[in-house]
């Protein structure tokens, strides 16, 4: 009895931050609580950069949090624990080992004897539907089969907790669906030697399909924004209206939270160095606006439907929508995306006019562009090294975000012909025409 009441994992006040010399710490996870009980599947849902994979690594014992309490079966976690196994997004199979050798890896590590090793790996391979592939090398297998090897390798050590880090996101839609269904079937039939599954995903439908409980993460810093129980019994039908409603609701939650996180720092720092940008290509923006404008959307689209139609993940669609919103071409509201008048004007315009409209909105809404342009203008040779801006960005955000923001600004500025950029020299400069004008 006592066994069942004790949670498998309990995490309190977990915080993960990176030291930064110049300014404040970069916080990846802030004040996160998580409790995992036996018999449940829990999904951590969030956008990239929300720290959900970091949390998974903390649960696995691979990573030590900056502060906070991590307990595995009531004891402090000091490293990868026996009874926890992980499935990786990239599969993480050893290409020089056969399927069987890959599966046996975890058993070898704990010194299981040869006969038992072979028996257990045989069982796991058969259970997961890999029979006959024992002697194949990973590179001979399709993506779906590779992830099955990843699953078998995790299950063979008979873990209590299975950790899955975006396990199906590297697979095509059909294969991912098959694997999900197979896994849930095995789980429901109690054929898996597991007590609980913790899955990280950015796919809302996947979370609603699989999990009993969903923790929705907000980004920057990563926090648990919402916790939802999924009341549907397995097998779940994704066309069930209640199911659709739940997916819609979660879209709403995720779009509601994100813009607030984006705009708050922008208002606080008018220079624009604290405003992270997503390197969304201008082609993609134009394409999305054109799609929104035309039928069947006529200027307004439901995000889940749009994502399905365009075969986009939330992770791809949300940054795109947010960028359009920031530039004033569209608005995100309760899981819907609207095209603004400016957006319509953009779609109606010709190439050169589009650039002009885009440039005007860029200079009005992205202070960083103006900052770069004014530095170039001030210099007598009309050149400015990118390093200067990168350093300043890194005072306000992580190096990865700084890099992305810089890439976004370079791509957009080039498109709008506000400045030129020389990759080799890593410096901004004026367009030649502009330079002529300046001289006259």
């Amino acid at each position: 009895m006592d066994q069942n009441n004790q949670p498998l994992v309990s995490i309190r006040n977990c915080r993960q931050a990176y030291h930064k010399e110049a300014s404040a710490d970069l916080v990846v996870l802030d004040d996160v609580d998580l409790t995992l009980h036996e018999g449940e599947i829990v999904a951590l849902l969030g956008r990239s950069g929300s720290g959900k994979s970091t949390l998974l690594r903390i649960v696995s014992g691979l990573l030590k949090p900056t502060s906070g309490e991590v307990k595995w079966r009531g004891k402090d976690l000091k490293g990868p624990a026996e009874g926890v196994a992980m499935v990786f997004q990239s599969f993480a199979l050893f290409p020089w080992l056969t399927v069987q050798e890959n599966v046996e890896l975890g058993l070898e590590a704990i010194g299981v004897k040869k006969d038992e090793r072979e028996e257990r790996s045989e069982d796991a391979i058969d259970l997961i539907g890999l029979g006959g592939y024992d002697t194949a090398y990973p590179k001979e297998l399709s993506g779906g089969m590779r992830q099955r090897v990843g699953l078998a390798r995790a299950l063979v050590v008979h873990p209590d907790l299975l950790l899955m880090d975006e396990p199906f996101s590297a697979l095509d839609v059909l294969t991912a669906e098959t694997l999900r269904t197979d896994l849930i079937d095995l789980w429901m039939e109690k054929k898996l030697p597991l007590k609980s599954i913790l899955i990280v995903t950015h796919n809302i439908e996947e979370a609603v399909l699989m999990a009993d409980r969903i923790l929705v993460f907000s980004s920057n810093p990563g926090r648990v924004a919402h916790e939802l129980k999924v009341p549907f019994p397995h097998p779940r039908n994704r066309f069930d209206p209640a199911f659709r409603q739940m997916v819609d609701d979660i879209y709403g939650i995720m779009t509601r939270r994100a813009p607030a996180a984006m705009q708050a720092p922008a208002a606080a720092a008018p220079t624009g160095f604290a405003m992270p940008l997503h390197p969304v290509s201008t082609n993609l923006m134009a394409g999305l606006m054109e799609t929104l404008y035309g039928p069947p959307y006529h200027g307004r689209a439901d995000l889940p439907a749009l994502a399905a139609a365009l075969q986009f993940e939330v992770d791809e669609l949300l940054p795109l929508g947010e960028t359009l919103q920031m530039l004033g071409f569209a608005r995100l509201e309760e899981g819907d995306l609207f095209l603004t008048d400016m957006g319509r004007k953009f779609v109606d315009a010709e190439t050169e006019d589009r650039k002009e409209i885009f440039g005007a909105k860029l200079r009005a809404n992205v202070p960083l562009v103006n900052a770069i342009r004014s530095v170039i203008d001030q210099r007598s040779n009309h050149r400015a090294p990118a390093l200067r801006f990168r350093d300043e960005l890194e005072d306000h955000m992580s190096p990865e975000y700084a890099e992305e923001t810089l890439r976004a600004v370079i791509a957009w500025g080039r498109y709008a012909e506000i400045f030129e950029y020389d990759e080799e020299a890593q410096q901004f400069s004026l367009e030649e025409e502009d330079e002529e004008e300046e001289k006259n």
Partner: protein
Amino acid sequence: MSNYTPTALAGRRLPNRWDGAALLLVVGLLLALVGVGRGTIATPLTVLQNQPIHLNPSWLPYYALRSTARMFLALLFSLLFTFTYATLAAKSRRAAMVLIPILDILQSVPILGFLTFTTVFFLRLFPGQVMGAELASVFVIFTSQAWNMAFSFYQSLTTLPEDLQEAARCFRLSPWQKFWRLDVPFAMPGLVWNTMLSMSGGWFFVVASEAVTVGNTNFTLPGIGSYVATALAQENLPAIFYAICTMLVVIFLYDQLLFRPLVAWSGKFRFETTATLSGPEPWMLKLLRRTALFREIGDILSERLRALTRLRLALPARYQVNENAEPSRMADGLWFAIIALAAAFAAWKIYLFISATLHWRDLTQAVLMGIFTMTRVVVLMVVAALIWVPIGVWIGLRPKATRIAQPLAQFLAAFPANLLFPPVVLLIVHFHLNPDIWLTPLMLIGTQWYVLFNVVAGAAAFPGDMKEAVANFQIKGFLWWRKVMIPGILPYLVTGAITASGNAWNTSIVAEVASWGNNTLTAHGLGAYIAQATATGNTPRVVLGVVVMSGIVIIFNRLLWRPLYAYATRRTTLG
């Protein structure tokens, strides 16, 4: 054929203070070796039981066997060195700060310049025994092999895929298990390739290190190199011809039985997620894989080895990463202080040594000689490029020709060029040609093949769709070379050129002085300077010569080749 970044080009490090410390430490170490053997050089204490070398060709198989055995012994030591040195450098941040610059310096030092130091050192270790001479020879071969192998292994260890490392930690493999399950297999393709390059280059040093004269000390070890040295002294041309034939057979066997099967086998470890079409299986590998007997033996052996690598040998291991852990400032400070002290001590020793025996004009002379040799190397590189780039491109664009030419070029690169020197020397003596000019091509004999096979590989790898686009736009003639082909093969060309020029510097030590019977031809150059100082046992001059040559090679690598290679790979790849 795979194109691996030459180890001297990896990274974009500019010279920094660690290089200074490393240079001081390396030179200090060389001086320490000399110090150990100081007394021996002047006094003829080593009466080695020099076995006479028989020029009768029936002795050649035995000599060939002895030479080959030395080669493999050196290879064994190189592997041991690689696994320990590179692992230590990869696992310890502090160790890497010193070990890697030292490795970088060592791979730029002309190996034959070591001869004096090591010979004296080993003869002193085993006075009057053949053992000392054998070890000295093996050590020279070792120094020609070990550095780039260790470098390649280190690079692999520092680029291990993050997800596989996490998997290994998550499934709690012990460090010993992880080493054999992840580290070594991941490094395997690069390591095998570098080992094979090392061995190919090693034949040259096998030949060069068997018959050695340092001051009053000389030894000849039974082997092909001694055979040729004896034949040279006795002006026996047929014997030289026999030796060349024997070497051809040895290299052929080595190429067919070892090189090709190993390189093909290491393809299994290539880190890629898609199955790529590979070339035909070498016959030797096919034999090993398909023959029941060999398979049986292989299975038993590999099972034994596997059992060994499966041992946990559990040491307290850290599986959990703490990203907030700051390195201890105290320990860092202490470590820096130790290195600074060691470097300062080495500097002081070097100063004492040099100020006692050398003058400034020695330095100017050495640098002047260095400029002579540098001119030769530069001219040779230009000549080699002019000759072999068009030919290599022609071959590379024709798959059939590539299949024939590529193995041939690799085979020729392995052939010790110093065996081919005597016929050329004979011609120079016969026609009374100017050695300053005509000894120069000797340096090209062994080194040009690196340019050829890299250019062929580059041209063969040129993308098919781009070839079609170029044909479609009717791009021809000079424009084709300037805009299409030269940029297309540039990374490969630089790879070939740096390997070739590194070898040319080394070769200069044996190529700038050549003898035929009593005729000795000497060209002006740093190679001849070092060779003569070695022959007369003038250690300070050898040290000076080696340091100047290393300095020039390092400056060349850092200021010319490395930026060029970085530029070439950056500009000629998409994305």
